[in-house]
């Protein structure tokens, strides 16, 4: 079991409030990603769950039991650190076994579990090496091995892929997701990369300035962002925001439209603009269009579109896909 519930969790350092009243219900077996810009408090929130920091107020329940006064080791969680935090003087075997050794398990059982974990992660040939003799990806696996071998109630991941190169990151992303599904263990995963969040999560928590802005499945956040912040943070390229006159005509403060929901229309039809930069990726074409009082709009076209800088275009937003925001930045639900 690994149900984690946050109730009114607060954390402040002196006068600075890092986490302001966080309420969250993480279901057993789900993969939850905390995402947000750097400094939003996502790592702090994870460390509060881990017990590496003391909460200032509120409760953290793991399987219904309040753990705020329970030391990290007794919470039954395991953590994968951004730096991997492998013990440099221990072999891979020693690293993975350390937690079990601390728990006082008998040696044969430790060996069996370590070898099973190593097999799962393709680490068997490296069991007797030291961390410094491993590549970045292998170290990452050891860190994960150390986490899974203890069969915790939940895994905590603190930006675990940020030190890997792009190709490896995509591969490890898949592996972590697969592993989590296979073990069906709750996972809480911190990242600043919204692509990681979208691809890995069952549910995403968007954090900003110590506040939970929205909690929902990736598609919910994409289709129904609750506010300007989430709308701008989720989705790549980022959503276009059109304030001013055009929005005023629709009776709202700001209109948001994703680049993929802007159609390139026939001459004279829709919003006029001029292409300033065209990026041809083959599979997609990204246009940056100077739209006069609309500002710069990003347009995504699936496939190749032979437009180049300087060309005039007309853009039509998909009305069903428009997001309307009030002055406070909250979304206005139409239906």
């Amino acid at each position, binding site marked *: 079991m690994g149900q984690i519930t946050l109730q009114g969790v607060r954390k402040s350092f002196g006068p600075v409030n890092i986490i302001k009243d966080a309420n969250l219900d993480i279901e057993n077996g789900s993969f939850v990603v905390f995402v947000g810009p750097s400094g939003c408090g996502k790592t702090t929130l994870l460390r509060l769950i*881990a017990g*590496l920091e003391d909460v200032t107020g509120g409760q953290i329940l793991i399987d219904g039991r309040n753990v705020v006064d329970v*030391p*990290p*080791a*007794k919470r039954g*969680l*395991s*953590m994968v*650190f*951004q*730096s*991997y*935090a*492998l*013990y*440099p*003087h221990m072999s891979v075997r020693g690293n993975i076994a*350390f*937690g079990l050794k*601390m*728990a006082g398990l008998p040696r044969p059982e430790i060996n069996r579990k370590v070898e099973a974990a190593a097999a799962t992660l393709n680490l068997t040939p490296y069991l007797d090496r030291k961390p410094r003799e491993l590549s970045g990806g292998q170290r990452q696996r050891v860190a994960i091995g*150390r986490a899974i071998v*203890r069969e915790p109630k939940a895994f905590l991941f603190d930006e675990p892929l940020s030190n890997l190169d792009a190709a490896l990151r995509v591969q490890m992303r898949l592996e972590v997701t697969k592993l989590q599904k296979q073990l069906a263990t709750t996972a809480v995963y911190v990242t600043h990369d919204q692509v990681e969040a979208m691809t890995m999560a069952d549910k995403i928590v968007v954090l900003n300035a110590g506040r939970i802005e929205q909690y929902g499945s990736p598609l919910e956040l994409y289709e129904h962002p609750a506010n300007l912040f989430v709308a701008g943070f989720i989705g790549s390229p980022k959503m276009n925001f059109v304030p001013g006159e055009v929005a005023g005509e629709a009776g709202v403060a700001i209109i948001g439209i994703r680049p993929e929901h802007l159609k390139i229309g026939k001459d004279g039809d829709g919003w006029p603009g001029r292409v300033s930069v065209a990026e041809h990726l083959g599979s997609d074409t990204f246009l940056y269009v100077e739209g006069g009082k609309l500002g710069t709009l990003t347009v995504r076209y699936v496939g190749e579109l032979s437009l180049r800088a300087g060309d005039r275009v007309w853009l039509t937003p998909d009305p069903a896909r428009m997001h309307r925001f009030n002055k406070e930045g909250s979304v206005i639900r139409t239906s």
Partner: protein
Amino acid sequence: MARKVTSRHVWMSTAAAWLFGFLIFLPILWMFLASFKSELDAFAMPPKFLFFHWTTENYATVQQRSDYVHHALNSIIIAGGSTLIAMLIAVPAAWSMAFSPTKRTKDVLLWMLSTKMMPPVGVLVPIYLVYRDFGLLDSRAGLVLILCLGNLPIVIWMLFTYFKEIPKDILEAARMDGATIGRELVYVLTPMAIPGLASTLLLNFILAWNEAFWTLNLSTLEAAPLTVFIASYSSPEGLFWAKLSAASTLAIAPIIILGWFTQRQLVRGLTFGAVK
């Protein structure tokens, strides 16, 4: 360091570096050679460089004078004792400042450093009088105490900078893995800190071994370490260069060898981390 260099450049800098290195090393080399000469050869003019009658009788003489062993033993006890005691006090202090710092930690560190800046001569009088009254003059315990206090700031600083380099993540990982503070110390922190502990130990042993203000002023015979023993050669009678050289070689050889292992720690220790 993948800069292209011409072979002429390499040869020129090699020649110059070896020349200067040799000149700087020359006094030590010369002393080493003199220690194998007869007193007459050591005094000979023009000097005899390599072609003299090599003899180890000076070492035998120095060895036979039991007081050499006595002073060497004093040096070992005083330098070793003061270093070990300083370590015992410094390890917990440095651990605490590196892993559980408070707002005042920086001030405490700088204050500790400032005690090292106090010139010993400024407190010579009271220390001498207190030592006289407590019977600590010319006692090993007295020298151990004063060298320990004198080097404590350096020991704490070096250990602090080493501990500081141990990523906090790793200690937290150990905590997540269920290690108590005691087991964290035994299984994780100590093995990782051993290189740092060793070089701190070594450098401070060297500094204590070579200390020549308190040892000269607070000891005369019983507790006198090698610094004082060698100083007694400053106004001897008769021919003594070869014996002086032999005694000196014995006194500095082990330390120079230890010193070669600690040259990098020297920068860290004596600049208090101001140069990296």
